């Protein structure tokens, strides 16, 4: 099941890195010398503002801090919010259970600009550090462009675990089958025994018996309508037309195509104002572009823009 990671890109990467050679170790003495000087400078700066609370030798800092936290009987750690409901602004914290009814879903902004959308009839347990347990129903995650970010969104079900690799995807757990549909990027799927990766345009289903099926899924289309309906509102003000069109493209899964670089350049500096509240992304395109010199067409897979 596991896909072979050795491809052309891997070969190029390997050749480039071998050419560069191994990273030279930095002398521990050098590191300690610089640390001491920078630390001293920092403490002097911080003391000026009365900010430094304690000073602990570098090598011991982490363990001592942990000991302080564990041994202090009066220490109450604050409950950390992991996100907020878009509609109400209420916080969600680790341990919460999100339980949607048959009439409406929930749109949640996780810390770090990640959009989590919970479909109707879904039960989702909130963990810490981007981990969730899907007990029933369906969720959609858009982690945005987080190429340098080390954090993952991890979704557990009774059948297995899905880990995002910077992407848009949905996870459903229905009738004891777990399915992961990937709209953009890549999601790793594991049941503890075997693992595989679902790529853009793939839907991977992990059956309760342990078998895995892979099907194609359209990245634009009715499959995603429920998630698009829960998309956070886009604010036109303070965004360029190009940013708006990219948002529409990302939400609908349709490719954004300009008839020329000049058209793209004009969109990059153009701005529209007003509200598109209550409109779907495609309805918003019609409303917004009606006030500009741009002409557009949509064929189900592509949004074409002409100037």
């Amino acid at each position, binding site marked *: 099941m596991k896909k072979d990671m050795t491809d052309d*890109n891997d070969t190029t990467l390997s050749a480039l890195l071998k050419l560069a050679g191994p990273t030279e170790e930095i002398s521990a003495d050098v590191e300690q010398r*610089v640390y001491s000087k*920078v*630390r001293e*400078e920092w403490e002097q700066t911080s003391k000026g*503002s009365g*900010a430094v*609370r304690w000073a602990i030798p570098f090598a011991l800092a982490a363990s001592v801090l942990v000991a302080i936290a564990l041994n202090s009987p009066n220490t109450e750690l604050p409950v950390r919010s992991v996100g907020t409901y878009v509609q109400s602004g209420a916080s969600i914290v680790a341990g919460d259970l999100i339980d949607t009814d048959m009439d409406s879903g929930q749109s949640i902004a996780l810390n770090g600009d990640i959009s989590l959308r919970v479909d109707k009839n879904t039960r989702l347990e909130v963990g810490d550090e981007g981990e969730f347990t899907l007990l029933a129903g369906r969720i959609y995650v858009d982690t945005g462009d987080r190429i*340098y970010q080390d954090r993952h969104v991890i979704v557990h079900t009774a059948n297995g675990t899905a880990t995002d690799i910077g992407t848009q995807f949905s996870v459903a757990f229905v009738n004891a089958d777990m399915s992961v549909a990937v709209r953009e990027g890549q999601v790793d799927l594991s049941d503890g025994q075997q693992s595989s990766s679902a790529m853009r345009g793939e839907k991977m289903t992990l059956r309760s018996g342990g078998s895995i099926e892979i099907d194609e899924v359209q990245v634009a289309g009715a499959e995603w309508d429920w998630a698009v309906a829960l998309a956070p509102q886009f604010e036109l003000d303070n965004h360029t037309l190009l940013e708006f069109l990219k948002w529409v493209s990302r939400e609908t899964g349709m490719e954004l195509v300009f008839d020329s670089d000049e058209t793209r350049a004009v969109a990059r500096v153009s701005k529209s104002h007003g509200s598109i509240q209550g409109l779907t992304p495609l309805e918003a395109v019609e409303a917004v572009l009606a006030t500009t010199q741009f002409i557009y067409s949509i064929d189900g897979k592509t949004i074409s823009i002409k100037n």
Partner: protein
Amino acid sequence: MCVNTFQLKTDQKLAQRVASGDVAAFDDFFREYFPRLFRFTLTRTDGNADLAEEVVQRTMCIVVRKMGSYRGEALLFTWLCQICRNELVSVFRQRGVVSRNSVPFEDVPEIRAAIESISEDPGSPEHSHAATELARFVRVTLSHLPLRYASVLELKYIRGCSVAEIATEMKMSTKAAESVLSRARAAFKEGFRSLWDFEPDFLLK
């Protein structure tokens, strides 16, 4: 370099914590950025470690003094590199050092031309020079990546470690190692493209 808002916010939070006197945040900051900045600087001091140490120390001292003014308009590492470049010029001037790298080589079109000639004649001095420069391009790109990414790429592609071995070395699960490796590959490619304006594949055709 591609800038993403999530990383900017993470950097901004770290800077705020350091500026507020949080010792753990200071150590996180030092552990993450000292090695990257040191290697970044080494590529510009012709490998002179003493000089690199002085420049990095001066740079980081300036940065911790100014940390409260960091507004997250650029990545923290980008900010560090900019201050580092200024300190390099200053230290070179004070020591009367003439470095062939005093101008960042990513800004020199001639070097790009040399790189592009890498496939022309493998035995030629030009090819050798281009290969050396390309190696430095790769090192600079690596220095721009989060430490964890650079480490897994080195373990995988230079030391030839398996994913299981990487997981052991990095003290993480195999699954997490695979995941970090995947992100690191993408980050390297994006970083290379952003820094040098061409795809890494192009160089080896």
